[in-house]
C-alpha cells in the first residue's frame, strides 16, 4: 500500500495530472495517505524569480504561495499534503532527496516531449526512474 508518496513537481499541468492520477490510485484508503509535493529550483529559475520578486526571501515565499493551491486541492480530497522546495539541478537534487527519505513511491509527471527531444535533452522522469531507489511511477 502506498501511503507515503513523494510527488516531483515542476508546477506544470503535467505535474498536476500526476496528482489526479495519484488521487485515483489511492482513493480506497486515501485518509491514510500523505503526499509530499517536491519542487526543485534551478539556476535560471533563481535568476528569473529574484529579478521578479527582488530578493531571495520574497522569491521563496512566492514559490510556497504558488504551491499552496495544490496543497489545498489535495487536502480537500481528504489526503495529507505538504510542499518541500529544494534548490539545485532538478533531476540530481530530486534523486538525492528521494533516496534519503523512506517513501513508498515516487510520482512524476512526464513533460510529453517527443522521442527526438528526449533523446537529446534527456528527461527528469527518465533519470528518476533510473536512479531513485523506490518504486517510481511516471504519469504520461
Amino acid at each position, binding site marked *: 500500500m502506498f501511503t507515503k508518496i513523494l510527488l516531483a513537481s515542476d508546477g506544470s499541468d503535467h505535474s498536476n495530472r500526476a496528482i489526479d492520477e495519484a488521487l485515483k490510485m489511492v482513493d480506497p484508503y486515501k485518509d491514510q495517505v500523505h503526499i509530499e509535493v517536491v519542487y526543485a529550483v534551478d539556476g535560471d529559475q533563481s535568476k528569473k524569480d529574484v*529579478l521578479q520578486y527582488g530578493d*531571495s526571501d520574497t522569491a521563496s515565499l512566492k514559490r510556497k504561495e504558488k504551491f499552496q493551491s495544490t496543497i489545498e486541492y489535495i487536502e480537500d480530497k481528504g489526503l495529507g499534503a505538504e510542499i518541500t522546495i529544494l*534548490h539545485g539541478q532538478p533531476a540530481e537534487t530530486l534523486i538525492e532527496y528521494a533516496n534519503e527519505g523512506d517513501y513508498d513511491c515516487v510520482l512524476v509527471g512526464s513533460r510529453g516531449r517527443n522521442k527526438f527531444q528526449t533523446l537529446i535533452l534527456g528527461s527528469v522522469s527518465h533519470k528518476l526512474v533510473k536512479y531513485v531507489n523506490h518504486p517510481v511511477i511516471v504519469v504520461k
Partner: protein
Amino acid sequence: MLTSSMKQQWFGNIRGDVLSGIVVALALIPEAIAFSIIAGVDPMVGLYASFCIAVTIAFVGGRPGMISAATGAMALLMVTLVAEHGLEYLLATTILTGILQFILGVFKLARFMKFIPKSVMVGFVNALAIMIFTSQLQHFENEGWIVYVLVAATLGIIYLFPYINKTIPSTLVAIIVMSIVVVSMGIDVRNVGSMGELTQTLPIFALPDIPLNFETLAIIFPYAAALTIVGLLESLLTASIVDDFTDTESDKNQESRGQGIANVVSGFFGGMAGCAMIGQSVINVKSGGRGRLSALVAGVTLMFLIIALGNIVVQIPMAALAGVMIMVSISTFDWGSIRNLHKVPATDASVMIVTVLTVVITHNLAYGVLAGVVLSMIFFAVKISKVRVLSLYMNEGQKRIYYVQGQLFFASVTEFQEAIEFNESDLVKEVVIDLSESHLWDDSAIGALDSVEAKFEQKGIDVTFIGLNGESQRLLNKLGGVSKSSGH
C-alpha cells in the same frame, strides 16, 4: 584564524569548487577580452582585472560561490573616460571606485540598495543587455558578408553544443572552432591581436601615472560614483540570486567591502573596475561550485591559460567574440519582463521602460538607475497622496464630523484642505476632524491642521482633532502648532 565556518567556506566542497572554477575560467576568457574591447582598452586590462578581482574576492567577499570579474556593465560606463583621458585615468578611477565601495560597506549602506525598486532593477538588466548588443555592432562594420556568417556560426555552436555536452562551456568550443576555421582557411578578418597587445606576463604593482590634484579628481569622481553604484547594484543582485540557488544567506555589507578591496587591488595591478557577474555565477553554482575556492581557482586558471596560451588567444577572430557577446546579451535580457509587461501595474512598466530608454539615450547605466528611482518616487508619492475625506452632520446640524483616510504630508495636504467645507451655514458651531485612519508625516501636515483651525476660528467655529496615532501626536507636540488639539 581559520574558524570552522571559514574552513567550510574554503574547503567544504573541494572537488566541486575546483571543477566549476576551471569551467568558469574557460568561460571568462572570451568575456574578459570582449569587455576590454568594449571599454576601449587592451585585452590585458580586462584579463588582469578578472584575475585580480576573482582572486581577491575569494578571500574578502561576502558571498562564497559568487564569481566577480571584469563585467560589461562596468565596461560600458568607462567608454568615454578611456576615449577622452586614457588608461591611466581609468586605473585611478578603478581605485577610487574601490575606496567608495569599501566605505559604503563599512557604513553598512548596502541595505539602502533596497530603495532601488524592482522595476528599476529589471530596467537596468534589460538596458545592460541592449548596450552589450549595440556595442558589438562596430565589429560588423567594414568587414563584408563573411563576418555575418562567422557570427551566425558562432551562435549556432553556442546554442547547439549543449545538446552534445553540457560540462564544457559551449562559448569556449565556439571560440576554438571559429579560430581554427578562420586561421586554417586564411579568412582575412580582424582578430584579438589587431585590437591590442597580449603581453603574457603577470600583472605588476604600479601607481597610476596621473597628476594628483583636484582637477584629476573632478575628472574621475563622476565615473567612480557611477561605477560604485552600478557595481554594487549588480553584485548585490547576483548575491541574492546565488543566495536563492544555494538556499543560504550571505553578508551583503562584507560583499560591498570585498568588492571595494578587489577593485583597489585591480586598479593597482593594471586592471579595470569590475563586479559580480550574474551569468558566470549561475554557471559556477550550476557546475557544482559553492565555496570560496571556486573563485580562486577561476582567477588562477584564467591567468595561467593566458600566460601559457597568449599567442593562440590573439588569433581569436573578433567575429567569434561578437557572437559570444550577443549570446551574453540575449541571456542577460529579462525576457519574462516583456511577457509580463501587460500584467504588471502601468507605473511599474513605465519605470522599467524609462530606465531602459534613459540608458539607451545617455549610454550611462547610472543615469538610467537614477531616472528610474526618481520616477518611482514620484509615482509612489502620487499613489500615497490620495486622501479621502468623508463628513456627516450631528446634533441637528450643529456639529460636523470629518473622517480623514490616508497619509497627510506635503503632497497630500492640498487635497485634504480642499475637501473641507469652510463656508458652513451659521448653524454649525463645532467641527470635529477624526484622524484615526490618517497619519501626520511632516511640517506641511501640521501646517495644514493649523490653517484649517485658523479658518474655522475666524467664523467662530470650534475645531477638535481626534484619533491621532502616537507618532502623529509626537510630531504635533514637537512642531508646536495646534495648541489645544492635543489630548484625546
